[in-house]
């Protein structure tokens, strides 16, 4: 959890996204325990209620599950769930903004596709 919090969006959404990122990067593995609300609160100097709200969002989505008296754990299949969820927002968040900017710069569809495949090769 090395990222810093910023003000561009709600803190609890950022906490949720950070946990998701850790799961996608295999830093947090399925069936592994997630830090507690209080651990998050003290690490980021935020109110535990806010941290709890972020964690509970992921519980509601089934990405994490609660084990009474022990803590929160990463669900089986959590990675897949996060991927599917993020694919849905990918078009809105990235593709549409890219197309808008491309339009402003008069970049054609062919040019754009060429740019994407060239960038891919460079990596």
């Amino acid at each position: 959890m090395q990222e810093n919090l910023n003000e561009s969006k709600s803190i609890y959404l950022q906490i949720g996204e950070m946990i998701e990122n850790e799961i996608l990067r295999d830093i947090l593995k399925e069936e592994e325990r997630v830090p507690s609300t209080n651990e998050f609160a003290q690490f980021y100097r935020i109110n535990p209620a806010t941290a709890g709200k972020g964690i509970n969002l992921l519980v509601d989505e089934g990405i994490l599950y609660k084990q009474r008296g022990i803590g929160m754990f990463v669900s089986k299949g959590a990675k897949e769930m996060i991927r599917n969820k993020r694919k849905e927002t990918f078009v809105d968040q990235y593709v549409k903004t890219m197309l808008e900017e491309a339009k402003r710069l008069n970049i054609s569809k062919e040019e754009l596709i060429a740019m994407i495949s060239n960038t891919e090769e460079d990596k």
Partner: protein
Amino acid sequence: MSTIIAKGINKKYKDTNALKDVDLTVESGKIYGMIGRNGAGKTTLLSILSAQNPATSGLVTIDGEKVWENQKAIDRICFSREIATTTPFGPNTYKIKDYLKAAEIFYPNWDKEYAKNLVETFKLNPRKKVSKLSKGMLSMVTIIIALASRAEFTFLDEPVAGLDIVARDQFYKLLLKDYEETHRTFIISTHIIEEAANLFEDTIIVKNGEIYTNENTQQLLARVQMVSGSAEEVDALIAGRDYHRVEQLGNTKRATIVMRPGEELKVPETVTVTPLSLQEIFLAVCGEEVEQ
């Protein structure tokens, strides 16, 4: 669950109305942030809530019992404010340890061991005279008394005002640790809003002797947003709404809109909506009287 309720509080000093018909409910188990401009009435309000200062009119109760001149109620509240370095008779020659000793008598839940640890954490010399303390050291004493009081309702008046960033961070950490263990209620007034905003479950904004809002911080952040776009579009959007801080640059206009809780803002695609930090919200709603 315990609650402190203030109803119809007025406070008059000679010809100024420091507080005007203030109603406020403080619920147990929360960290509240209290923000307001200098002279808005924060300290007066905290001192009335803790029965250190009488209200001109109105009533403060804790779980239905009046707080004023009620030792049982007062025992549950700690209002820690900065100690004055001078007295009417000259410099304050009491030592830090004298204040800690007095606090031990004053607060029934006083945690001596905790106070001792905090003195060490802040590297204070308990034999030092109050008149010889720096601004930062005075803040540290305020914090030590507040935390070690272990009072069910603990109010801190600008506890970080004199502290450097390292000590402020240390305080935020100590506060959260204490809150994890005790889950008691804190009200913390501060001018360093940017740093502390995320610590506050609820935020109380005091404006000109009145409560502008007392609500969940995340809710407040969600319902105040900045819109920017062409002057015509922004004018159309703010018409009939609670709006603040209208500024124009060329033909681009921006304004801060305060929505009702749960309300969503529908804007044309050409208008940009930006969320604001608590500090920016404060600037928008409390900064107007200085403009123009």
